[in-house]
């Protein structure tokens, strides 16, 4: 067992004009026994990244280390990695028991020992009753467990899960999430979980690595990603509903720093730290962001005034879409709230929750 370290890893498919730069200067450190989720929208390069980690794809440049062993150019079978596939990839003509013991067979372990280990892992994943069945006879959830079991049966340096939940229904997904968390706690293996679903990523992982456009955007725990997103992409991608963004101008008065949203008469008060850094840089324009969850009806000193356009009742909460000038944004409201479209409302916020981004680079200023 060991940690994983990716250093300036690049992947370029093809060559010349048709080449695609799928992974660009990627750095990632996963410590021993840590559970990290690799999160990003489809086509962001996360699958290429994981295929490079396991060795199914060659790396164009850079280095991948397991512990302090450089495995960048080893064949997959020499890396001692295990992977659970999105499509499960069970061997359809083997029984479940044979599927599980397949990684042991190649090691030449005695049959007795293979059987013992198979039984242990089947016990752990609660699949003892289907050991003699063939994969096509199994349900999606059962196939999923078998594929996890096959990956876990030997002691791999790194354990990789590729979109393993994307074919499970919501109910099953929830219980699998719980099981995975339990497995990680019991086994303390280094795990990398690849997904496009932020709920899975945030629920499971110690840290989440957010990828987009072939680049690593930010690596951090839930709170960091949520409250201190590195850039507009992360702020937009993490959290549901997505963050409200405003293009805004900054005005500096004697003691006050005021952010005026363009095309509206909205003004935002930045937090003290943010105000200080703005003042130092004397920048004129920013992108301001505030999460719908951080706009509410509990009275504070600061508020935005806008007209209700749509009020959607979503069961546990309501979502308000409000408009001021031509600027539209959203806020979360209590479910029992009754407001008619056209009503003017005050939405209160804490200056601390106002996020500011550079309009050019889209990175977090404060």
């Amino acid at each position, binding site marked *: 067992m060991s940690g994983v370290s990716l250093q300036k890893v690049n992947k370029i498919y093809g060559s010349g004009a048709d080449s695609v730069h799928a992974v660009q200067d990627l750095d990632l450190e996963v410590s021993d026994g840590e559970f990290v989720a690799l999160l990003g929208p489809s086509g962001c390069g996360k699958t290429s990244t994981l295929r490079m980690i396991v*060795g199914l794809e060659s790396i164009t440049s850079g280095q991948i280390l397991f512990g302090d062993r450089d495995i960048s150019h080893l064949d997959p079978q020499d890396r001692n990695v295990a992977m659970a596939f999105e499509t499960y*990839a069970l061997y*359809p003509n083997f029984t479940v028991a044979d599927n599980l013991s397949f990684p042991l067979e190649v090691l030449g372990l005695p049959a007795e020992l293979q059987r013992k280990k198979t039984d242990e892992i089947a016990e752990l994943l609660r699949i003892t009753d289907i050991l003699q069945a063939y994969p096509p006879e199994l349900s999606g959830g059962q196939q999923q467990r078998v594929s996890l079991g096959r990956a876990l049966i030997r002691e791999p340096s790194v354990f990789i899960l590729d979109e393993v939940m994307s074919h499970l229904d919501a109910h099953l997904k929830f219980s699998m999430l719980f099981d995975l968390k339990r497995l990680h706690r019991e086994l303390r293996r280094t795990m990398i979980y690849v997904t496009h679903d932020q709920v899975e990523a945030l629920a499971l992982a110690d840290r989440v690595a957010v990828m987009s456009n072939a680049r690593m955007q930010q690596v951090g725990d839930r709170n960091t990603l949520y409250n201190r997103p590195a850039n507009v992409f992360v702020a937009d991608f993490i959290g549901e509903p997505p963050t409200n963004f405003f293009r805004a101008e900054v005005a500096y008065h004697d003691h006050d720093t005021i952010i005026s949203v363009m095309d509206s008469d909205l003004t935002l008060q930045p937090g003290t730290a943010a105000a200080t850094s703005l003042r130092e840089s004397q920048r004129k324009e920013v992108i301001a962001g505030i999460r719908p969850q951080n706009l509410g009806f509990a009275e504070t000193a600061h508020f935005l005034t806008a007209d209700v356009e749509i009020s959607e009742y979503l069961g546990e909460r309501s979502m308000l879409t409000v408009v001021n000038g031509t600027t539209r944004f959203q806020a979360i409201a209590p479910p029992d709230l009754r407001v008619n479209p056209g009503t003017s409302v005050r939405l209160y916020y804490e200056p601390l929750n106002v996020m500011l981004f550079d309009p050019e680079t889209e990175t977090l200023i404060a």
Partner: protein
Amino acid sequence: MNHATGAMTAGGTERTQDAWRHVRYLFLAFLGLWIVFTVFPLYFMTITAFKSAAEANLTVPTFWPQEWQPRNFIGVFDERTNFNALVDSFVIASANTALSLFLGSLAGYAFARFPRQAGGENLAFWILSNRMFPPVAILVPMFFLFDNTPWGTDSHLSLIILYLVFNLPLATWLMMVFFRDAPVEIEEAAYLDGWTPLRAFFKVTLPLVIPGMISVAMLCWIFAWNEYLFANLFVGTAVRTYTIVIPTFTHGSQTLWNFQMAFSLLALIPPVTLFILLRRYMVRGLSLGVVKG
């Protein structure tokens, strides 16, 4: 109002049922006709094989032998080399099938797993298209080509290699389809489970394409077994295939129909036996869907 609608619906249903019944009758009639077309020749061949030479040559044919003459089946081997012809055909068909399968699987695997490195879809299609031109077009060039080889035209080897022209494209194309159907993730999973590519192939991928391979083998074997055009021109002295023996039962103005049919019936036994033994795989293989997850 309600009543009227109900009546109309009922009438409509009746009419639809009537229409379906007619379609069914038509279908059955067609099926009957088709059975007559396919089974009658077989039937006539079988009874003719048991007739005497005189009865087989009657102007008004009999549909049941007046006198059964099973010794026709021994008579066809009066010419000793006739039995060797069946053996020659068997050797040529089997060797060609084995070679087609082996080379076709290698090429098919390459096209399925490494399409870009293997030359792409166009090359694969070009190979298949070799199967589409009329074979007679290359009859003469091929004769001169093989005439200049050390083993000449009149040998097993010449036909074994020549039939690759037709069987290899088919085998390559079909094996490509079967390998494509065998999920690549399964192979990748085996690599990650510690297996080398070669061992993973034999352990994991090959078993998935075996039904397909068997049906490809059948197609190749039957083509090589039945081939007449090239065999007729190429071989005939040192090597004879059974297909060129059949016409030898025609002497001048007289045809020994009973011998010809008896010999044909014997030649039918190997492919029919193979088909019966392997029909389970044939159906699985030819439905072109080997495995799905």
